[in-house]
């Protein structure tokens, strides 16, 4: 493909020079934050660290981390509503967004006009790497509301020169018809929504989504496109290439799966610094293959900076470089899970994404599932509810046996299985919450 990279210089910068760039940029954003954010300054003063103390990447580890709960605690105060983390005058804030609130009270995020340009620039790296070009007509079936979601994807597609079709107010069926009518070649959405959209086309409209002109899809907002079985379902449902992007309101658009689909996502290491911490010891993990928790710095974000933010995302560096030639490292499997979600059940460590991989990799099962973990006295149990496809009902017992075997193999756990008819389990509009840990909610029997 002609002009493979959005920025061939940065994206193939030799590692030594890239790391030097990261250090210099970290020094800059750290000084900026130390000078202007009362919240961060107090944190750094307590830790006894100043910008002059940062001379190497190793020194960065001394900078205290910021967690989402800390941001929640300082907001809804002046400068309202952002509080003491704001580094620019309030009248220089031009964009308001907030987090989705799936993990608690939403966090408000301020961006200046320059920050918003930066958001769109980071997304341009994403889309260009996935093959978006001026010849694409990009359909955006999302709500255009207070969540940052695909807003920057919209403007990045424009920046690249694509034609952008906003599908905001349309319902799902109208969106499907619009894709068909205007011959859209690309779209963006959450895996949950796009799987649901395909199901709507098939079951309610008598339309085969594979015959729609969509050639490529960018997924974001939740894990899914990084889980091989889910990606395969999406690609099969739409007859399109599906690419993952992991980003966050508080962080930015920090990663992309390039068109070579290396089984993971590149970190945009010219714009973000990723550190991986061991979940138990907190030690920094450099070697590939070992998973840990991501601590991330947005090296250019100014109004409300993101400096050593504890994302709680579980990731691991990939063993092999990507054939695309980028020196931006790959995180194998994308975001593997959330440190908050990875839990011990019956003494065994469980990542919910492993269950999704089994369910969606199994022929005869629908896309939806639910997991419920409970405790009765001292005994823990885990129930998996799945939907069995009508054509597989006769082979129900066989499917159940295979499912148990795969679950045991992949998660080392035994499950109470419930097989339901397709359409029975809850459907989610945009982001799903399929894993329910009733032990945490104090709902023991």
């Amino acid at each position, binding site marked *: 493909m002609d002009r493979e990279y959005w*920025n*061939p*210089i940065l994206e193939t910068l030799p590692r030594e*020079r890239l790391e030097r*760039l990261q250090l210099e940029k970290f020094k800059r954003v750290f*000084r900026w934050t130390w000078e202007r954010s009362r919240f961060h300054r107090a944190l750094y003063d307590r830790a006894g660290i100043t910008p002059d103390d940062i001379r190497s990447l190793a020194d960065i580890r001394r900078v205290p981390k910021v967690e989402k709960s800390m941001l929640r605690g300082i907001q809804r105060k002046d400068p309202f509503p952002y509080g003491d983390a704001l580094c620019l005058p309030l009248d220089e804030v031009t964009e308001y967004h907030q987090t989705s609130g799936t993990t608690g009270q939403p966090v408000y995020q301020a961006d200046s006009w320059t920050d918003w340009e*930066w958001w769109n*620039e980071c997304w341009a790296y994403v889309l260009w790497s996935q093959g978006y070009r001026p010849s694409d007509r990009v359909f955006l079936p999302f709500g255009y509301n207070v969540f940052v979601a695909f807003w920057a994807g919209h403007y990045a597609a424009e920046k690249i020169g694509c034609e952008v079709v906003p599908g905001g107010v349309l319902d799902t069926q109208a969106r499907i018809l619009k894709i068909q009518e205007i011959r859209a070649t690309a779209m963006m959405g959450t895996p949950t929504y796009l799987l649901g959209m395909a199901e709507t086309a098939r079951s309610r409209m008598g339309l085969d989504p594979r015959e729609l002109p969509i050639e490529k899809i960018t997924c974001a907002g939740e894990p899914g496109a990084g889980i091989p079985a889910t990606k395969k379902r999406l690609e099969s449902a739409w007859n399109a290439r599906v690419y993952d992007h992991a980003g966050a309101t508080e962080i930015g658009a920090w990663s992309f799966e390039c068109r070579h689909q290396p089984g993971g996502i590149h970190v945009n290491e010219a714009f973000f610094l990723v550190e991986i911490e061991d979940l138990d010891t907190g030690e920094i993990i450099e070697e590939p293959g070992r998973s840990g928790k991501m601590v991330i710095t947005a090296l250019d974000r*100014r109004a409300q900076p993101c400096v050593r933010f504890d994302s709680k995302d579980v990731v691991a560096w990939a063993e092999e470089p990507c054939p695309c030639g980028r020196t931006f490292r790959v995180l194998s499997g994308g975001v593997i899970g959330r440190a908050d979600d990875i839990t011990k059940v019956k003494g065994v460590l469980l990542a919910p994404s492993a269950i999704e991989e089994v369910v969606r990799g199994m022929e005869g099962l629908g896309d939806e599932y639910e997991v419920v973990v409970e405790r009765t006295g001292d005994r823990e149990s885990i129930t998996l509810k799945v939907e069995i496809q009508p054509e597989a009902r006769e082979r129900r017992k066989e499917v159940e046996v295979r499912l148990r075997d795969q679950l045991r193999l992949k998660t080392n756990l035994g499950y109470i299985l419930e097989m339901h008819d397709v359409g029975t389990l809850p459907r989610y509009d945009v982001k799903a919450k399929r894993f329910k840990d009733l032990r945490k909610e104090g709902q023991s029997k």
Partner: protein
Amino acid sequence: MDYDETELKDLHDRIRTLRRVAEELREAGERIPAVERNAQRILGSIDMLERNVCDLFDPVAPWNP
């Protein structure tokens, strides 16, 4: 990708010139919102040019307000 440092420095210098001109325009047009605010928007794009090219020069320059 191999690139010519001289060419890159040339890009860098042109971008810095753009910034200087845009900043002067913003200041000169401060009584005309159409000029001031559009110049401010242009500076946002110039900032991205700096992130993509100018930051490669060591040490990275402090951010412009």
